[in-house]
């Protein structure tokens, strides 16, 4: 890196944003940057941990066992993940605005350590903005890019959290001074005519509050009527429940409505079963009130009824080893199968549901049979179930 010698680089020759007095607002302050930095450190850590949990539930490593109870835990953690991400948007934009003059500082690097710190800001800033917009666009189901969202979002989270650790290390020593407001106050020509520092912070928090208020209702029912800008409304959808993958997109309509439909139970069983829809209706039916919780952050409770999975497993003489794989009729798709561990497969409320709110399932909700189980993301609640394999 070639850097001009400060002595030869007179400040008055610098132009545009490089001018020493280019950014005169008193809001470009260490005090604001420190407080927003702490808020973002907390919110990104919460998003990272809840995101890792959601990833581990869907792709469990051998050591990871996720219980089926409490039934609404995933609804809480994923709701927090998405809501915290949305609330972070103004925090991040405010933080970037506050420290923006540093982008143009001259010389660009004053020491090797300073250069390393600044280079580490690219994965931090790029990664943070990437995580927020990709996450939000995913909830809108808008994919203007070539990558598969969950994979890219997951790896971007590691890049960002690594860069955040570097950033915290670089800023830790200056944080206390920043929070105390001990810095020299930069000249602010406007004085009382502009937002003060506290008012600026309060406005950023107000923006977070507004975004939260108009979106949180997609998972938190009491705020449902305020969810003006949520991409989902809990009651909007067939039978009062939103849909993520409609039957038409999954190309299952013909198979799912075929009168010859059979549910097959295979694998590590004493006697494989092949059950028609009438066979299933003739078995003891059970009711459960369970939420569908989408990874995208919406959730809604519903009243399901159907056959307990554990009853069917017992009928077939299942010997569960690794788990139970539930397979959809859909010919392809990233989520056509779901593997349940022992805890979920044998939970009293884990149903092969035939009905919702006392009506047969709509085709978009997985007619004739769908899986509904406590404490799992919606993508694992397989619809149009055709086969159960005991592993």
């Amino acid at each position, binding site marked *: *890196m070639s*850097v001009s010698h400060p002595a030869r680089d007179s400040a008055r020759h610098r132009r545009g944003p490089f001018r020493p007095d280019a950014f005169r607002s008193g809001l470009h302050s260490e005090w604001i940057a420190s407080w927003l930095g702490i808020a973002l450190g907390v919110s990104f850590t919460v998003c990272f941990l809840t995101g890792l949990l959601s990833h581990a539930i869907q792709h469990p490593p051998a050591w990871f066992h996720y219980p089926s109870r409490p039934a609404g835990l995933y609804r809480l953690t994923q709701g927090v993940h998405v809501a915290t991400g*949305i609330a972070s948007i*103004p925090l991040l934009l405010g933080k*970037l*605005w506050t420290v*923006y003059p540093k*982008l143009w500082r001259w010389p660009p*690097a*004053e*020491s090797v*350590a300073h250069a*390393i*710190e600044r280079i*580490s800001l*690219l*994965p931090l*800033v*790029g*990664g943070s903005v*990437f995580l927020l917009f*990709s996450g939000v*666009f995913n909830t*809108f*189901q808008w*994919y203007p890019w*070539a*990558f*598969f969202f969950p994979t*890219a979002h997951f*790896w971007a989270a*590691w*890049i960002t959290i*690594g860069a*955040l*650790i*570097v*950033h*915290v*290390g*670089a800023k*830790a*020593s200056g944080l206390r001074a920043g929070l105390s407001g001990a810095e020299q106050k930069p000249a602010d020509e406007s004085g009382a*005519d*502009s*937002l003060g520092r506290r*008012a600026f912070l309060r*406005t950023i928090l*107000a*923006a977070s509050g*507004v*975004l939260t208020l*108009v979106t949180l209702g997609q998972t938190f029912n009491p705020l449902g009527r305020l969810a003006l*800008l949520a991409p*989902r*409304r809990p009651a*909007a959808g067939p039978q009062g429940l*939103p*849909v993520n993958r409609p039957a*038409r997109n999954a190309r299952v309509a013909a198979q799912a409505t075929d009168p010859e439909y059979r549910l097959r139970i295979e694998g590590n069983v004493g006697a494989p079963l092949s059950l028609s829809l009438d066979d299933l209706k003739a078995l003891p039916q059970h009711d459960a009130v369970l939420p569908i919780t989408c990874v995208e952050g919406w959730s809604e409770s519903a009243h399901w009824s159907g056959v307990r999975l554990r009853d069917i497993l017992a009928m077939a003489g299942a010997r569960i080893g690794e788990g139970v794989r539930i397979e959809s009729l859909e010919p392809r798709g990233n989520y056509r199968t779901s593997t349940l561990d022992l805890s979920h497969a044998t939970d009293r409320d884990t149903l092969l549901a035939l009905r919702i709110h006392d009506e047969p399932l709509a085709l978009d909700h997985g007619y004739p049979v769908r899986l509904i189980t406590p404490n799992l993301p919606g993508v694992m609640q397989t619809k149009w179930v055709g086969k159960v394999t005991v592993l």
Partner: protein
Amino acid sequence: MIPVKDARYGPVFWVGLVLGWPIIGFGVWGVIHTRAQAVPVSFTAWLVGAAIVHDFLVAPVVFSAGIALRRSLKGRIRTSIQAALLVSGVVLAYSFPLLLGYGRRPSNPSVQPNDYVVNVVVVLAAIWIAAFVWLLASAHRARRASR
């Protein structure tokens, strides 16, 4: 050459570096390792592009708007308008795909079920009314204080 020594960077910085960069490396490895899904070219373009678009497009526009506002208005009105613009800008930055219907598909009407143009107008109206009330209240407080 730039100096190696810099008293502002203590051991905590180097510890953060030793902990953080391997995690960044893990993320980069993951993108390459799962390239069929993560599509490194697209991934990099959007991640680096995010920083570039913010720093060289969004920020200059915001700063220009700030300067224009500063030149055209004075006093308490300016403060309330700054605050209202900030919150409105955030709401629009979040909701522009909803306004444009990006991601909306006839096959699934439960995605983006609201009339977002109307709803954004309602939210913005609430923000500006709140800013106006705040302006009146602070003017009232200032008058009482000066008496």
